Each structure stands twice: as structure tokens, then as C-alpha cells.
């Protein structure tokens, strides 16, 4: 198929960006979206132009690096997948596709489609851990039984890949789903309970400091989240916060 691409080009964080049109031809429906981008970039390199910079690494939906806003949706049309798992069979010959970076005040553009998500890092550093040293004589792994239900729920929360689609999708650029997922994982496990109060307070304080918006319960984040992280995690985080403040 032949396509028109409208892509955000921006030289660096201090330059102004703009949408630029490109044409690609002979795209196979079996290609992944990023392979289509490879074709475009190969074309650009061969004509001496600068290729489009975009983040990607694993190309199998787990590292959370890829981050494109395609036709107005984070990770494009299709549900439960990342940009790298999107396939061209979702488009048809003659389509025009708009490709932008994940936009949020806390995700400044570095170049073209690459954004800086280190605000997520700083939130994790504020409390996304259990304070235990590596010693080789930690107590035996089976000494505290954990109900299968709690373990499975913690696991579901823990599958967040830190991509930022929730933020890019939210009209308030809120990071509640991302933070809620981490807070929940630990809140559900006995090992994490010990520091639960401090953790939720510190992580939320850092989130506010980074300039993420408030949550107004629109639920768009859950719809676009490639890993199906549930809104229940936000509710759990709010309960943890309430507990912490009484």
C-alpha cells in the first residue's frame, strides 16, 4: 500500500517543531508499524536527509520504550498493544497517518518523536522500592505465605511497562495510573506494607512536583494502556493516601 505520513519533526528541545509530510510506497500489510518507519528512514538516509528519530528497543511490547501518538491515539488504533506491536494491516492503501510524540508538560520533546520520560524515573526513586539490602541471608522465600489472589493482583499491577501512554492520553496529563500501579503492587504484598504510608506520600508528592495533572476520572488511560492496568489501582492508591493522612 501507499501512504502519506504527517510526522512531527523537531531538531532538539529548544527548537520549534512542525509537521512534515512524507510518502512511502509498497508497504506490506505484514509489516509492523516500526518496520514501516524503518522503510521511511532508509529512504531518507539514501537521499542524504536526516531520518526521523523515535524511541524503540525490544520491539515486542515489553520494554516500554516506543511511544508514538498515531492518528490521535497513544500507540495507535488497536487495543492492548504498544506501537511496536501495531501492524500495517490496521491501515489501508491511500491512508494519511499522523504521527506525533507523546505530549505532556512533564515529557518534553528531545528530538522528533523522542520524549524525555525521566520524570517517571524520579517518581520511582521517591519511593518505588522496598528498603531491603542484598545480604544472602534474607529470610526464606516461603516463610510468609501470600494468598494467590493478592499475589496475582500484585502481578497484574506490576506488569506496567512505564511507557507513558496513560499520561499522553489523559486530557490533564495525569500520571495516576502509572503511580497507582506501583503503589498497588507493594501495598498488596506483606513485604511492601511496612513502608506503605511513606511510599504513597513520597511518590505522589514527586508526581505533583513533576507537573503531572490531576485525575478527573475520565478513564481514558485505562482504555489506551497497552498492559490493561486497571483503574482499580488508582482507587487503591487514593485509599492508601487517605489512610496515610489520618
Amino acid at each position, binding site marked *: 500500500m501507499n501512504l502519506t505520513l504527517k510526522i512531527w519533526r523537531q*531538531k*532538539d528541545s529548544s527548537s520549534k517543531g512542525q509537521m512534515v509530510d512524507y510518502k512511502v510506497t509498497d508497504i506490506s500489510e*505484514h*509489516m*509492523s508499524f*516500526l*518496520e514501516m518507519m*524503518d522503510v521511511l528512514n*532508509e529512504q*531518507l*538516509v*539514501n537521499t542524504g*536527509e*536526516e531520518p526521523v528519530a523515535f*524511541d*524503540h*528497543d*525490544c*520491539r*515486542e*511490547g*515489553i*520494554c*516500554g*520504550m516506543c511511544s508514538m501518538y498515531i492518528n490521535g491515539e497513544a500507540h495507535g488504533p488497536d487495543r492492548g*498493544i504498544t506501537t511496536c*506491536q501495531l*501492524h500495517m494491516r490496521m491501515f489501508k492503501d491511500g491512508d494519511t497517518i499522523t504521527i506525533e510524540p507523546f505530549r505532556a508538560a512533564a515529557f518534553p520533546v*528531545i*528530538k522528533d518523536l523522542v520524549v*524525555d520520560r*525521566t520524570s517517571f*524515573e524520579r517518581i*520511582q*526513586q*521517591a519511593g*518505588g*522500592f*522496598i528498603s*531491603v539490602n*542484598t*545480604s544472602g541471608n*534474607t*529470610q526464606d*522465600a*516461603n516463610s510468609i*505465605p501470600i494468598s*494467590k489472589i493478592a*499475589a*496475582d493482583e500484585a*502481578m497484574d499491577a*506490576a*506488569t506496567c*511497562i*512505564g511507557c507513558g501512554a496513560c499520561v499522553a492520553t489523559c486530557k490533564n496529563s495525569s500520571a495516576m495510573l502509572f503511580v497507582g500501579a506501583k503503589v498497588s*503492587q*507493594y501495598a498488596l*504484598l506483606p*513485604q*511492601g506494607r511496612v513502608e506503605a504510608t511513606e511510599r504513597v506520600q513520597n511518590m505522589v508528592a514527586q508526581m505533583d512536583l513533576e507537573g503531572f495533572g490531576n485525575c478527573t476520572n475520565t478513564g481514558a488511560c485505562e482504555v489506551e494502556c497497552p498492559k490493561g492496568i486497571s483503574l482499580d489501582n488508582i482507587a487503591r492508591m487514593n485509599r492508601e493516601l487517605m489512610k496515610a493522612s489520618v
Partner: protein
Amino acid sequence: MALDSRVPKGPIKDKWTDYKNKINLVNPANKRHIDVIVVGTGLAGGSAAATLAELGYNVKAFAYQDSPRRAHSIAAQGGINAAKNYQGDGDSTYRLFYDTVKGGDYRSREANVYRLAEVSANIIDQCVAQGVPFARDYGGLLDNRSFGGVLVSRTFYAKGQTGQQLLLGAYSAMNRQIARGKIEMFNRHEMLDVVKVDGKARGIIARNLITGEIERHSAHAVVVATGGYGNVYFLSTNAMGSNVTAAWKIHKKGAYFANPCYTQIHPTCIPRSGDYQSKLTLMSESLRNDGRIWVPKNMEDVMAIREGRKKPTDLSEDERDYYLERRYPAFGNLVPRDVASRAAKERCDAGYGVNATGEAVYLDFAAAFDRYGTEQAKIHNITNPSKEKIKELGQEIVKAKYGNLFQMYEKIIDQNPYETPMMIYPAVHYTMGGVWVDYNLMTTVPGLYCIGEANFSDHGANRLGASALMQGLADGYFVLPYTIGDYLADDIRTGPISTDSKEFEEAEKEVKDKIEFFVNNKGTKSVDYFHKKLGKVMWDKCGMSRNAQGLKEAMVEIKAIREEFWKEVSVPGSSNEMNPELEKAGRVADFLELGELFAKDALVREESCGGHFREESAELDGPQKGEAKRNDKDFAFVSAWEFKGEPGDAVLHKEELEFKDIELKQRSYK
């Protein structure tokens, strides 16, 4: 220089304990004055960085991604082995040690493997304490599954995302230390050289991938944990950015490179669909527990399927060739990875591949649907269930076990694997070879360490499933933090290492010159053009089976590609900005050198062992006819290569392997 593996004396069971009792320690007050650089923050590097910081060292950690959480360890699916014996099925440290040495086809160093098995149980304790949500049973205790090539159930897992959960555990431990200021994290930075002062590793040159700035960083020791080099094949299951650069640069500065030809080609990956393919996707090995692998018996059916005139489901049982069951009745579809991969290649080379590229075989779940369905019908007291009902019941069970994999397959191939068999083909997945290290995990350069997949030490010529995660975390959490102390104990009075020396200046200049060369070369071909060309030679001549003539040709061809690369490569953009093409160019330049050494190593090893199959070394007759033939008399050694200016001129050093605690046997899966 003679190789000294520094394996402690004494019985294998006591070596690690005795060693720890005798090594030099650095007192906590002195650790504050010692800096350690860790390059790469996957399972091995991340766990090492966190632990070293907890101990009190000042750590500087480097990753090319925007966060340590994105390292490719995150993609490991299946699980992590540990000799916990929670299932009471007779597991023990010795058994895990034995399985790993045997699985590695007797080409690993006994003492290292024993230590790995010994610390494996600690890893699980540590991870649970960190909040890693491993799978549990209804009693609330940890669950286990079993994996290929072993007789016990010792694999711990977190759904199909074990690597992700373990990496996030190590990442959380790092975050705690970053917050305390004990780890300084350099995201989006790439190490481009190591700096030696007075023969010791004292720092690195790194490029800031956002600004393009070249930076000098000094430390008292340097740890390289940058993973494997599977991307030398262009197509592999590795992440797009996975590369050999850090490992190769240290090789060129004096670290020997061991067994480069030991590569694991994983049998169950999604086949290639066209020339635009950028990477391959693995489907967990666990699928082979329930899937049967086959190709059509008759060539007419192969053609009919390729041309769309027939569907695989049209073929009756006796028109199918279940070739693994035919060749290996004892293990059937569960033969080890190397054996399964070669058998698929054998059928496809003979023309029986079932897709347009001729490189695919079927993985069929129909029998599993039937078996589980019949069982379910009994459990639910359904009398005379219809065929459809049985299939439906069976599919539910398979869905519960592998639903995410089936969905992933459908997204990529656009076929429903519940209705038609999956197509699979082997793909490059893991490299057992890597930088040579001694028992302390130190390379042949003092103060320079190498851990995780980047080193060569524990898996011999073939790695067992669920052992990569175990090794990465063992090295980072429990081994390196001890062994490095023994070395650093001599450095308590050294003081900060200056970056204003001529050594740093020279290393920096070399790095800068190369970068300027790339952006000014204005050649005619893209970096990918050369990478793909290299990948094709590697796959055709250094792939699943190898022979002397092909390997000699590969050496010549790779050298020619490398020469063309330096003339014709084109890198748009400039050096002082984010420039992904420039990053790729540097990495491919190193792959083009490694590839030649790889072929040379494979040529020298005139035996078949593990993932390395030499066509000249196969059993000629008897029940094992056609199978791989190991040669313990002449090849029970590690090949450690010393760099001498050109990859083809590398000099071979042999570390003889001694097996005192295990009897060497031919592997048989018939």
C-alpha cells in the same frame, strides 16, 4: 600471558565458602572513597550496581536506554531456576550444577557453575523480599514449573514475564540507591571505550546520546554488563539496540574474548515474513510441552500448502511427518533447544518448509485440545461429548496456559492458532560465548570485570532454559560484590582517579576521530545495508550448522564487507546531537570485527558441541548416526582469543577444562 582461572583449591562444595572467608575486605569507611563504574543495567548490571551501592561504594551506572528498566532482560519470559527443592522432588545444589554442566555439553568451568547453583536459592529469597510477585499456589507458597532437559521442577516464574519482574526488582533496588545518592545514573549514555592507566582499568569514555558530548568518567574499577552479541546476525530475538560494543572495545584493550562461536538458536520463534523484517520474536519454549512439530511427508503437499491450494488441517495423520518424534522417540518434541533447531533446519533445507520463504515448520496443538478436552469431559461428567465439544473444552485449557502467546502470535501473523497450526522457525536468541573471566569474574585486564550474558563462564556450549536470569542475578547480587572487594582492598589509599591524564586524552581522541569520520564520510550506503549483509553471511555460514569451507569463506566475506563499510557508509546528521544512525554505525563497525573472530573460532573448534555443530564431526553409524559428535580428547578447553590488531590475527589461548566432579558423557536423546 598464561591464563589463570584462579579457581580456589579444595573440594568443590567448599570452594566458595572458603574463598569468602579468606579474601581481603574493604572496611565501610574506606568504601566511601572508592568509585566503581557499571556499564549496562540489565539483570546483571542493575543488581551489581544496587548491591555495590548498598555496600557503600560510589557507583556510576550507564545505560543507552532512557531507564534501567528497559534493558532487554525485561523480555525474558519463562522463569528462573533455583535449587530450593520446595517441591520435594529431589532437587539439590549438586543436581542443578550437574544439569547445567551436562546441558552445556561439558564446556563450562565446573567451579563457577557449582557456585552459581549454590547461590541460586538466595536469589529467590532476595527477590521475594524486594516484592517480586512470583506465581503462588492456593496455599500461598511459591509455585514451580519444569523446563526442558531436566527431571525436577525448579523454575520460579511470574506469568510469562519473569524477566520483567526480576528486572523491575533490581531496578527498584537501584532507585533506592539513586535516591540516596550512592548511584549516579547516566541514562542515554553509551560507553565507547575503556581507559587503562598503568595497566589497570580506571575509567571509560562515554557519549551522551542526547547532546552528543563525549565524556570522561573515572573509577577504581569498571564492570561491563552489556549483554550478548546475537545481533551480529542482524535478525535475532535481541532488542534493536543490543550490541557488542562495550565488550568488543575492552577486548581490543586487552580482555580476551572466549568461545565467540557458541550461540543459542532457539527453536520456537515466529518465522520471518519478508526482507523488511527488523527483528524476530520468541515464543516461549513451554509451548513444546503441548505442541507437536511436523512438516508434510510429501512434496506435493508442501507445494499445495505454499500455493494456498491446501490447508495444513487438510492433511491426514499419515501425510504428516512428526520428525522429532520419529528421530528422537525418547524425548520427542522435548529435545534440547540445539537439537530441535537443527532438526527443523534439516527438514527445511530438504525443501519441506511450509511458508513462502520455505523456512517454517508447524507447531500443532490439535492433539493437546483433544487430550485436555477428553479429560475435561470426564471431569465434568459429559457423556458422549461431540468432537466440537471436546475441542472447545481443550482449547479453554490451552488458553489458560498460553493465552498471551497465542494472542501475540495472532497479532503478528494474523492467523488464529486455535484453528490452524502455528508456524515456527529457529532464531538466534542468546550467546554463551563472551568476554573471558576468571573465578572472580575479572577479565584479563586488572580491575576490569564482566558479568551476565556478556561473559562466557557458566553455560558452556549450550544454555538451559531459565538459567540466564539465574546467572545474571547471581553475578550481580551475590558474586561480584564479594570478588571485587578483594581487588579494591588495594585501592583504599589511591584517592580519586584524575581524568586529566594522557591516557584519558588519547582514548577520548580516538573515540572522537571515529565519530567525525562517520559523519563526514558521506558514503553511498546506509548502516543497515551493511548490517544485513553481515547478518546473511553469519546466518548462512556460521548458523545452525557449520563446515570448514563455509567458515573460511565467511572470514573472507566479512572482511570484505568491513572494508566496503569503511569506504561507503553514509551517516546523515552531525556528531553533536541525538543521532541514532551514528550510534548504529559504531555498533555495526564492531559487529563487523566480531563476526570474523566468530568464524575463526568456529573453524578452530573441529568438534560439535552444544549450539556449535560442525558437519564434519557427526556420528557416522550406529544408533546415533547423524547426531553431533563431541571430542573431549582434543577440545575440552575454552578458546580465549587475544586481540592483535586485526580480528583475523587473534591469538588463541586455551584454558583446559577439568571435570573432577562430573563424568563426561555423550548426550543422547534417542
